[in-house]
């Protein structure tokens, strides 16, 4: 990754009649970065991707790719290539001709052949040159789509939900493969996804979108640890969200009275959009310790009753009903015997360290 900006979007807006598909999009992407646009369906992430590709023109604002303003530049003249959600493999062409499609007529035939072979090796489809488009499996189609875009040596590779059509095992394998490919090629990847795990495992940075707006742009770890508001906090991973009263506001610390848990001192979240008397705090389920007795070594505790247990294998999710607040979720690693420690109806204690409570700013 270099310090050079490969994509700059300034105050970009896309309107369909009175509906704003995307608004106030300000984005700077570094060369060689793996960036993901993450959000629920209909949040405008695909619109942003398609504006970069040139399939849609912004209603307002500007898009620069490698310093050049893309206004009025049609999709076929942009230094970007796209991997489509449906893969869009040309059904009348075999693998080699699909991959060579964008080079025909621009590059000598011998060079095309060499580059096709090279890029097919790269996506592990070596030797499948003459395979017909309709004889490919889902994973192979995905690789052909990737090869067909990469052979163009784009400045930016755009990926629209590239893994959503694959089964879970293959999807996880491709996540690593694509990440490795991106790092070895050093090309900027911009991926649209609604799958938070996909975005977290592959990206250098993630932009979280809701209702056409970019809510937060950060590294996966920062998004998880310091989400800017309730929406981002509950979209990325699981989060218990509690109301709290702000008693004293310092520059780096806040003194709060959190519902159920009482007074505590927590770190101020610089990403939070603002503070007021009523704020929200978040607690990751894996930070809640579940015990049969009141835990002595935890400064904040609460008592409740187990209302639901879900055994996932690598961890166990407990839903704990607590008087006066919403049901809390605690996640714990199973014991050595992989048996469940608590059952539905058991009275339990939940313990919490102050450092793990996340300030989510004022409650709107």
């Amino acid at each position: 990754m270099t310090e050079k900006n490969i994509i700059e979007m300034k105050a970009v807006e896309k309107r369909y009649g009175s509906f704003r598909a995307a608004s106030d999009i300000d984005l700077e992407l570094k060369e060689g970065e793996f960036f993901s646009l993450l959000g629920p369906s209909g949040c405008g992430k695909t619109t942003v991707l398609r504006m970069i590709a040139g399939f849609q023109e912004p209603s307002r604002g500007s898009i620069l790719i490698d310093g050049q303003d893309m206004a009025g530049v049609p999709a076929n003249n942009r230094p970007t290539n796209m991997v489509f959600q449906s893969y869009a493999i040309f059904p009348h062409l075999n693998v080699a001709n699909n991959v060579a499609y964008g080079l025909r007529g621009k590059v000598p035939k011998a060079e095309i052949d060499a580059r096709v072979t090279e890029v097919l090796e790269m996506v592990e489809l070596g030797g499948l040159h003459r395979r017909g488009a309709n004889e490919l499996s889902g994973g192979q189609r995905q690789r052909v789509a990737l090869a067909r875009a990469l052979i163009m040596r784009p400045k930016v590779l755009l990926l629209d939900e590239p893994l959503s059509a694959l089964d879970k095992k293959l999807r996880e394998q491709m996540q690593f493969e694509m990440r490795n490919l991106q790092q070895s090629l050093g090309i900027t990847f911009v991926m649209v996804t609604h799958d938070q795990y996909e975005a977290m495992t592959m990206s250098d940075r993630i932009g979280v979108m809701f209702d056409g707006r970019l809510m937060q742009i950060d590294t996966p770890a920062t998004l998880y640890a310091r989400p800017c508001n309730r929406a981002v906090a509950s979209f990325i991973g699981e989060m218990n969200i509690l109301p709290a009263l702000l008693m004293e506001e310092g520059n780096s610390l806040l003194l709060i009275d959190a519902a159920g848990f009482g007074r505590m001192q927590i770190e101020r979240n610089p990403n939070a959009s603002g503070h007021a008397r009523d704020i929200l705090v978040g607690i990751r389920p894996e930070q809640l310790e579940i015990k049969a007795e009141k835990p002595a070594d935890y400064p904040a505790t609460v008592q409740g009753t187990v209302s639901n247990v879900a055994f996932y294998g690598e961890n166990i999710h407990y839903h704990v009903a607590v008087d006066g607040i919403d049901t809390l979720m605690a996640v714990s690693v199973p014991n050595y015997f992989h048996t469940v420690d608590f059952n539905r109806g058991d009275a339990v204690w939940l313990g919490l360290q102050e450092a793990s409570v996340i300030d989510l700013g004022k409650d709107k």
Partner: protein
Amino acid sequence: MFKLRSEAAKGYTLSAPATAYVGFLVAAPLIILIAYSFWSQTYVTLDKSLTLKNYREALADPLVHHLMLRSIWIAGAVTLTTVALAYPIAYFIAMKARKKTIWLLLITIPFWSSYLLRVFAWKLILGFNGVMNSALLGMGLIDEPLSFLLYNEFAVVLTLAHAWAPFAILPIYVSLQKIDPSLLEAATDLGNTPVQRFLRVTLPLTVQGIIAACLIIFIPTVGDYVTPALVGGSDGKMIANLIQVQFGAANNWPLGATLSLLAMMSVGFVAIVFVIAGRGVGRRIR
């Protein structure tokens, strides 16, 4: 396995009425036709001893050659004209039009009147004192009526192209409709201009539709009898008119049957060559 068998049996049962119907109305007359072609007739006596006389006679007759070639040429011209005009319409409906159903309905409007009436309508338009000539005279663009509009090959091609247009539009429309829009975006994304994209993606993916449209028009128009009889004049006569004469005025059914079979074979041959060539062209585009 047992279930599969009963499924197949169900299929045969369901198609049995149609099979019987087609068998009776197509296969039976065809067999009679073949039988007739090997018989011979002198005035009113039908000689049922088998002979190749009709085939020898037909193949040696320059008039038969001439009419057969003209029929194929006219049908080819009709096919080419119709498909060339139908493709843009089908493209518009499939790719651009908002209210596709209304457009498709509008296209079927010519069928709301009978074929014969439409041919007569063209006669009224193209005739010596017809709409076209009156209009041109009225506007002062010509001094005397144009005579080349009616009773020639041009009139036959024009009339048939109009009559068969929906049959070309529909199969092409269906094949265009089936194209995944993301394929077109992918072509653009890979650097194609709209024209390149059309030639490299849209056209190859609609080859099947074009071939279907060509066959649907070419095969029936080679044997068309009504249109050349009404608007063709002597220059526009086709093989079907000669066949009709054998079954009518000339009263030589065996020769008529032979000519019919020869016409069918010629059409079949041209159609097969066309399908193979069309597929080959479709496959060569990359």
